[in-house]
């Protein structure tokens, strides 16, 4: 091996190789088309999708009001996706999100409607329920050593049970203060408040995952838990924190959903369950291929909402929309595998 000087200059050009076209493909041994798909596949698919819908429905799809509606609707989905990104980064699953969305929003709405609690206080209590539920998940997974896949599935059921206990499985639509409804339906600078709340959550999770020490530790323990532990990282505490974050994100999404609907309907979290996971997996094939990342999740959630809007506007049925979403999730998983191979 020739003397490799360990500088960044050397990284750009490996020894004994001319710089120029095709060099990067030769270096990694992965065909260039595969690298391209891994890096930009999802973005290309998004653009193509937008073009197709715009061509099919030129007066409905490519309009400002449609974009505003998409931005409004995809916000709760994205928020759940951001929270899920945090746990998935650490190699954990949280299948209790739907249950937590229902429980959190049921707590908030019933406090206001049945007990006359001030809406801000009700929201605070709801968020605390998210923290507590996440802490229980985290304790069971990180401290008691249960498999996150199974235990959160069970906990989702428990959350669901509590929700029904509170609401008696009835829709609550009376006694919800106007101020609460305004949270989701109000606008700022012509865009839905939901969009800005989503941006706020995005900013926080982005700073946490991509910029802070905690995020670095989370990625480290997702990459190699034992090495992280032996490096002095508090693995159990971090995993628990992850579940608390997704707990809070679920409740925030639940608040937006009930505020938007001006009512709390039983099991309102369920429709968000699969799309939220799909957003994260789709996102792991964007920007940083093969790695769960929160900006990717943003793109993923937006993509799914574009598809769902487009298909609805083409007057296709829910069954087709579900089908397409399922296929996209499967495709996203394959894409992110490709991304891992290419890096």
């Amino acid at each position: 091996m020739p003397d490799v000087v360990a500088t960044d200059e050397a990284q750009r050009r490996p020894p004994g190789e001319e710089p120029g076209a095709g060099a990067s493909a030769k270096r990694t041994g992965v065909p260039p088309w595969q690298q391209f798909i891994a890096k930009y596949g999802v973005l290309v698919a998004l653009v193509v999708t937008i073009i197709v819908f715009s061509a099919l429905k030129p007066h409905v799809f490519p309009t400002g009001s449609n974009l505003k509606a998409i931005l409004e609707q995809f916000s709760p989905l994205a928020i759940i996706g951001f929270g899920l990104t945090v746990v998935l980064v650490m190699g954990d699953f949280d299948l209790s999100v739907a249950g937590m969305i229902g429980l959190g929003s049921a707590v908030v709405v019933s406090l206001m409607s049945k007990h006359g609690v001030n809406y801000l206080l009700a929201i605070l209590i709801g968020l605390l329920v998210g923290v507590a539920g996440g802490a229980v998940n985290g304790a069971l997974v990180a401290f008691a050593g249960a498999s996150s896949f199974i235990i959160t599935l069970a906990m989702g059921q428990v959350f669901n049970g509590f929700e029904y206990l509170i609401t008696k499985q009835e829709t609550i639509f009376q006694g919800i203060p106007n101020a609460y409804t305004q949270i989701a339906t109000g606008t700022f600078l012509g865009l839905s408040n939901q969009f800005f709340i989503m941006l706020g959550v995005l900013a926080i999770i982005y700073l946490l995952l991509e910029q802070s020490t905690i995020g670095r530790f989370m990625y480290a323990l997702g990459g190699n838990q034992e090495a992280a532990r032996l490096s002095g990282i508090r693995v159990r505490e971090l995993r628990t924190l992850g579940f608390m974050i997704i707990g809070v994100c679920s409740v925030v999404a639940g608040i937006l959903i009930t505020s938007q609907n001006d009512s709390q309907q039983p099991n309102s979290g369920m429709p968000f369950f699969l799309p939220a996971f799909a957003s994260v997996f789709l996102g792991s094939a964007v920007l940083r291929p093969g790695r769960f990342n929160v900006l990717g999740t943003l793109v993923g959630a937006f993509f799914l909402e574009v598809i769902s809007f487009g298909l609805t506007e083409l007057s296709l049925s829910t069954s087709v929309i579900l089908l397409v979403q399922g296929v996209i999730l499967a495709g996203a998983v394959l894409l992110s595998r490709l991304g891992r191979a290419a890096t």
Partner: protein
Amino acid sequence: MSGEPLVSIRGLVKQYPGVLAVDGATFDIPREQIVGLVGKNGAGKSTVIKILAGAVQPDAGEILVDGRPASVHDPRQAEALGFGFMHQELEQFPLMSVAEKVTKGSNLPRHAGVLVSWRSMYEQARTTLADLDPTIDPRRPIDHLSIAQKRIVMIARALLARARLLVLDEPTTSLTDEEIKHLHAVCRKVRERGGTVLYVSHRLDEILSLTDTVIVMRDGQLVTSGPTAQTDRSKLIAAITGTGSGQTAAERRRARGIAGRPTGEEILRVTDVESDVVSKISFDLRAGEVLGIGGLVGAGRTELVRLIYGADPRTAGQVFVAGSAVDTTTPPKALAAGIVLLPEDRRNQGMVLDFNLRENVTLPSLSRFCRKRTPFPDRGRERGAARKMVERLSIRSSGVETPVRHLSGGNQQKVVLAKWLERGAKVFIFDEPTAGIDVEAKEEIYQLVEDLVKQGNGVIFISSEFSEMVAVCHRVIVLQEGRLVGELDGDAITERNIIELCYGHVGAVAA
């Protein structure tokens, strides 16, 4: 016919990102011989093997089998050509039985062409194993076997698949002397039956005693190839390193000026540390001292240091750093007390393979790189620190943003060292820091250990190569079956004395 080599490698080239792993390697593997392949880490041995196995495609060059060009695009083709492999890292389905493992890949005996005939499968496995190691029961799950037995199972599997070339990559790592002897006997048996063995090892003693031909690679190329009888240890070392000649451990020890125990203050004291594997061990360590822990595989060396570091729970025992009792029941607490552990298994415990060099180096000390009063590390400063480490430890990489999975074993080990140096400590525990790395990198690690103790730190050094403990340690304690059985100091530290303590009766303490 027998004059013609079994396999010829012609002008093989393989480029990885930033690293030219194989650079025009050309050599022959003569048939019906045991052929040693040696070279430093990063010399290209593993890549050549991966190319033979069909796991990696070369960028240029060809492979001739029986004089005819052969293509090896995937593992199936490699098997069809008669190549069988026993890799360094054993991938196993733990619950699969020995017989399933051995017969997998060959045509499974079947009833009516569909149902697997278990009886004839066991029979097939038994006959194949009978020659190699009759004590292995084909019905046992793979997981219940010792490492040595697992390796023999993999050899049996290759033989049953009619392998003509058996490739063994570091087959004696973590084996006891007895097991090594047995494995060597198996290799000779394979040769008697007309097979050819390509034997890759860092242990020159076994290369010299076992092989017929030895091939030396350096920097991705052939350096020399010839009959083993016409070479010796120092010639081999010279060929491997490209410089100088080999010294004995005692010579190296003298060259380093290591005499008796230094007179520094006590920096670490361990009293009555106990778990289900280790029984009541006490020792102390002074500032400026390198303490070796000797013992056979399974004697409890790794277990002991993991208890001290809090990596595993201990049932009893107290740890004192610089005279005061400290809590080291978890790794973060041990770190806070000034103890670091470089774990035995670097790939699975030492680093995050998906992380780049910078991220691995700064992982245990990340908060130090944060911008003032924020939890946000400054990547520029991290990069600076990582570059300094790259320079200090002469890590070969194409930059600090290179993922560590692209580095060679020796350089990966240096990255793990770098992360603990960056963190800093009073007591450095190194568990097998030189396992599987080349002569030059080993020298650098010895130098590093010396520098650390000169700065007033204490070092605990575990190695299965006793000669290197002789070369670097001021004092050696020896464990046997979880018990401390002896202590050697000064000139009493010789390979022979260490080995005697390892095998001696519990309670007998050598001078």
